[in-house]
């Protein structure tokens, strides 16, 4: 006998015996799945935003320095531009982009104010591919090429120095021979983004800063991006092998505090996901148990008529499967649809500053992750099937008359 042909239509009809209740239960399943998908995506976006914000500041996915630079970042600890095996390693496919920089602690002075700064010499085109400093985010003409004169400063620093575009400032820094040098420069750009950096990071062209500090062709650091986040470790390792005399570090080694905050946020997110999954699951379990316990008498009847316990269990599981699969498909569509409407970004608004404290941007970009959708559906379907097993197994372990009569009272 084809048992499936016996229980399949019966299970389907049972499902629609109480149309309103079935639709409500399906809606509960759908909301559970959609909530899991949306919550999972939102938290993933939060984590990705915190990572992007940290690495896009200037850190990149990793950096290469002369040995000792990270402990004592001075002009003297410089290195030659990449060549030989290191240049070859940086040209490989697993490197998304890289950029050379010169760094020096310096003092900047306007007619009214002065401030300590971090002076960066950069290659503007390469820098745009690695960090936040895109030409579009800079007001003014910006740095045209790697030898162009002028500096780009943050808006906060400009407010503090009480200067605007076109004004001249004086920068003083110690050169490679230990002498204090001064240079007059024009403000050619004001950058937005990265509020923390705006207070102290000043950018000039690489050639200009190299000449100012007497570094020749030498540079202070190379920042690089891996093609994929998952490839950072491998790439860092291969670059370390290509440059054994230099110090190659990952972003989390360079920014341990930021990495710890992101890790803590990820862990908190994971706890939130588990808690929200648990809350949703309890609601779902409660609904399914209520529906099935109402039908204990029927389970007793079917056994009394001669339905074997295994077949009864199969029928109830099939019924639950119909119910939750329909609900899960609807929930997946609802969750995906919601995420698609948010693909332009979710403005956290008043949460923005709080979000930044935990490393995230003011705007999150939730994405549709198929594996997350499948996971949410699988969790709900499996949970429902396991839940539905409990009452029916209980019914099959008792003699039919107990199930029939106890359900009556």
């Amino acid at each position: 006998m084809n048992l499936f042909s016996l229980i399949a239509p019966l299970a389907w009809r049972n499902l629609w015996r109480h149309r309103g209740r079935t639709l409500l239960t399906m809606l509960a399943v759908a909301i559970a799945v959609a909530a899991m998908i949306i919550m999972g995506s939102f938290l993933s976006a939060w984590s990705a935003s915190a990572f992007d914000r940290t690495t896009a500041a200037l850190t990149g996915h990793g950096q290469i320095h002369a040995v000792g630079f990270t402990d004592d970042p001075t002009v003297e600890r410089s290195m030659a531009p990449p060549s030989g095996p290191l240049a070859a390693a940086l040209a490989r496919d697993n490197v998304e982009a890289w950029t050379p920089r010169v760094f020096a602690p310096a003092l900047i002075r306007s007619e009214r104010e002065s401030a300590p700064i971090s002076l960066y010499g950069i290659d503007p085109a390469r820098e745009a591919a690695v960090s936040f400093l895109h030409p579009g985010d800079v007001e003014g003409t910006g740095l045209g090429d790697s030898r162009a004169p002028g500096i780009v400063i943050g808006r906060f620093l400009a407010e503090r120095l009480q200067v605007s575009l076109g004004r001249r400032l004086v920068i003083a820094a110690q050169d490679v021979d230990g002498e204090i040098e001064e240079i007059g420069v024009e403000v050619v750009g004001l950058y937005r983004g990265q509020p923390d950096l705006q207070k102290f990071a000043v950018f000039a062209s690489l050639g200009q800063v190299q000449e100012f500090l007497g570094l020749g062709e030498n540079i202070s650091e190379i920042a690089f991006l891996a093609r994929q986040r998952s490839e950072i470790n491998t790439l860092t390792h291969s670059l370390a092998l290509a440059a054994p005399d230099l110090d190659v570090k990952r972003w989390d080694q360079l920014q341990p505090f930021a990495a710890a905050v992101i890790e803590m946020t990820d862990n908190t997110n994971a706890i939130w996901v588990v808690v929200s999954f648990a809350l949703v699951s309890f609601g779902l379990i409660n609904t399914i148990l209520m529906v099935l316990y109402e039908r204990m008498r029927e389970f007793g009847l079917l056994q009394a008529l001669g339905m074997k316990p295994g077949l009864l269990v199969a029928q109830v599981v099939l019924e639950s499967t119909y119910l939750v699969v329909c609900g899960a498909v609807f929930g997946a569509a609802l969750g995906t649809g919601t995420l698609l409407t948010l693909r332009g970004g979710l403005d956290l608004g008043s949460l923005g500053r709080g979000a930044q404290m935990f490393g995230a941007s003011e705007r999150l970009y939730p994405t549709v992750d198929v594996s997350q959708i499948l996971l949410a559906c699988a969790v709900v379907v499996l949970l429902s099937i396991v839940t539905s097993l409990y009452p029916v197994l209980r019914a099959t372990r008792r003699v039919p008359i107990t199930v029939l009569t106890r359900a009556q009272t």
Partner: protein
Amino acid sequence: MAVIECIDVKKTYRSGQVDVNALRGVSLAIEQGEFVALTGPSGCGKTTLLNIIGGLDRPKSGDVCVEGQSLNDLGNSDLADLRLRRIGFIFQAYNLVPVLSGLENVEFIMQLQGVGRADRRRRASEVLASVGLAEVQARRPAELSGGQQQRVAVARALASNPAIILADEPTANLDSRTSQALLELMRELNEKENLTLVVASHDPKVLEFVRRHVTVVDGRIHSDT
């Protein structure tokens, strides 16, 4: 050999803090083709005895043999198989599957037995026609009267070609005219098909139709005539 044999069957229920002796050692033998009424006051144990004979409940001690097979030796699955193939039930509350039509309710047992679609449909139609329900086969239980539902239950019990039919208060929810018709149908089945029927009932009218009357009082056989 008796088709049903009860050997010193005892059954105790727990009701709150008190043990209630529903059956206090019932021994009874019923031969093939008998039409037996179990009567007695409420709570005397007749329904309990019927449930134990049908394998819906288990005795505390003693044994029941159906066609020579001890029910004590059977697990839940084997008992379900015995009920499916050898015993038909008619319940007081009809107990039809609400999502199936009258015809499908009758077919359901045969489907469990593995009877092919064409054969079971033909047999179900025949049995329903024999209980006077040829016109309402497509209706679901909620669309049938109490009498019609009980007749579907009888048809369901008959459709599987059982050796024994056990009926618990089959006329309790029926008017006198429908009760009369149902009892006449049962007597006809007993006489024509040589079916063994055991009916637990309060209804004195039942006694007009049966050939054997067993009275149960306080969990014991009081009389057997």
